[in-house]
């Protein structure tokens, strides 16, 4: 049995919009294992981003239990959750990922500084950028980079402190196919070489195609959980896995 990094059991999450209560998650169970390259898919409003936020300690569940690295998030203070995010998690967002007034190098270095790392921060940040082939972007500010380049730098920042789990919310939503694929390849390489675990919330079939595991959520519940190399069948309900003009991923997996 692989190590369980995240354990969610009977998780519910309600939002109150005026007098209306929206049940975003309705008793959801999910384990995320070390090395997963997991895509959470589902239609808009299905609860995938809500789930990602709960796993990322950005929000708290209304009911049930979410454990990250064995720690129950429900008992954690705001400060402790922030500390967990800083020390053990990496985040990649859909947009506005970087501090606009800092260069790529400074953005990466900033997270290391937040973690309290002193001497050698700059060298570490530079080496992360170079390892990911982003060395030439080091001195550029976000407005001097393309969307794809910004997202790649955001990934570099997310992984700079070697977190065990990286959460990415729609990371390819604003990218074209070529940049999206390049980003995914980079993340999968990080998973393979640095033993990191990636969890995506996504609509993008390209991400689904690259994922090793696809969890489909509908109306706040998991309707399918497919581990591609496990021999289980891929979901067939309206999940379009291939973007127009995009070649299937090179790991031999094809999802219909």
């Amino acid at each position, binding site marked *: 049995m692989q190590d369980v990094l995240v354990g969610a059991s009977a998780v519910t999450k309600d939002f109150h919009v005026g007098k209306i209560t929206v049940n975003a998650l309705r008793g959801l169970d999910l384990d995320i294992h070390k090395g997963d390259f997991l895509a959470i898919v589902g239609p808009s409003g299905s609860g995938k981003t809500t789930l990602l*936020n709960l796993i*990322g300690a*950005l*929000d708290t569940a209304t009911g049930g239990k979410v454990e990250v690295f064995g720690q129950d998030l429900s008992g954690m203070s705001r*400060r402790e959750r*922030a*500390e*967990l*995010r*800083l*020390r053990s*998690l990496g*985040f990649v*967002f859909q947009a*506005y*990922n970087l*501090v*606009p*007034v*800092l260069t790529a190098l*400074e953005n990466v*270095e*900033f*997270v290391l*500084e*937040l*973690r*309290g790392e*002193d001497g050698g921060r700059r060298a570490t940040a530079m080496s992360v950028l170079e390892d990911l082939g982003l060395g030439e972007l080091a001195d550029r500010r976000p407005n001097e980079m393309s969307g794809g380049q910004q997202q790649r730098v955001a990934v570099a920042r997310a992984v700079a402190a070697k977190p065990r789990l990286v959460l990415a919310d729609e990371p390819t939503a604003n990218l074209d196919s070529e940049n999206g694929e390049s980003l995914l390849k980079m993340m999968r390489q990080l998973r393979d070489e640095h033993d990191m675990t990636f969890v995506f919330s996504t609509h993008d079939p390209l991400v689904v195609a690259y994922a090793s595991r696809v969890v489909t959520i509908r109306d706040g519940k998991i309707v399918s959980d497919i581990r591609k190399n496990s021999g289980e069948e891929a979901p067939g309900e309206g999940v379009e896995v291939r973007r127009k003009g995009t070649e299937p991923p090179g790991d031999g997996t094809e999802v219909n």
Partner: protein
Amino acid sequence: MTGTSTLRIAWRNLGRNRKRSVLALAAIALGQFIFLAVAALMHGYMDEFHGSITGPMIGHAQVHAPVWLDDRSIDITIDNVTSALDAVRADPSVEHVSARIYAPVLTALTEEGFMSFVVGVDPASESHDDGLLPGLDAASLMGEGRVLAGSGFARRYDIEPGAELALVGQDVDGSIASGLFTVTQVISSPVDIVNNLGIVMTLDDAGELLAMYDQAHEMVIHTRDLDTVGETVARLSAVPALVDLEVLTWREIVPEMVGMFEMVDVMLLVVLGIVFVAAAAGIANTMLMATFERKHEFGMLLSLGCGPSRLARMITVEAVILGLVGVVIGTALGLGLLLITQQTGLDYAALGGASDSYEASYKGLHLSSLVYPRLYASDVLAGMIAVFLTALLSVVWPIMRIARMEPMEAMRL
């Protein structure tokens, strides 16, 4: 954690909306400039005023016969003035002491007659910088019927050196006093009575004219340290030779002037308050807008694990930089104005549209519309502290917003 990134981010953030930052800087700089300009003018005016009062006019302290100040009658005198002067000089804190005689007289010049005022002084004791005749070789110009005439007085009655003045008045015994005196020089003095009415003569000549022998109306004292004048006065009051006289500090003699100085301090505080409000408006507006516009960015940073205190520090540093840069620009402008005007002076009359500067008197002081601005380090510091505190105050609300901010809510908006 070092503050390198905090400083870097704060500094660069100010360049994100340059127009807004420049406007805020301009408001702060203008506020500081106005405060410094007003402070420099007021200090220039009031320091001259203060210098004149504690200089030639009142001195640091005075000795009189009781009720002289209320009555100023010629027969209320200090007797045995020589021994009284010796007693005052014996106090180690006394630097200068001089006796003076004052008496109104009628003056005749050829066919004209007019009112004037005899001021009897000891030229040697009045020639120091704070005396009535600073830098003047008065001893060679006065005595044995030779006198000096105030410039306003001389101008009004066409009195020139060499003019012979016939003085008629009442002596200390109530008899007619008269004498003929020759003007040797016209002098300008900040003491109004000397400038506009004064015929300045030696104590001996005045004593001869008014039958005041070893007598005077007041003794003017300059101490080595103005701040300790109260202690000096207390000591002198107990000296046997002075025990029947009243010894007063300048503050006791002209309390209305003290009130005026205090009023100026209050006015400067009001101006400082205006600077405070201008700076607060500039900084608070900038920081509120910046916080609102960067809500998403703050959400992202909170998501990464950045604490609200770190964000608060970032905003605070940003506000403080904005305030300090503004205050430095305002200070540079203020010092520039000071540099330009402190040599030539600034003419209030010209500022008001008049072609010539004017002279006026207030409470016995002769004043000019020409002011030499003067600034103290404490003024600059006061402005800086005010802006610094404003910067801190102006970020309270943005910081409170940040403290309540949930990362995902901030990122959603």
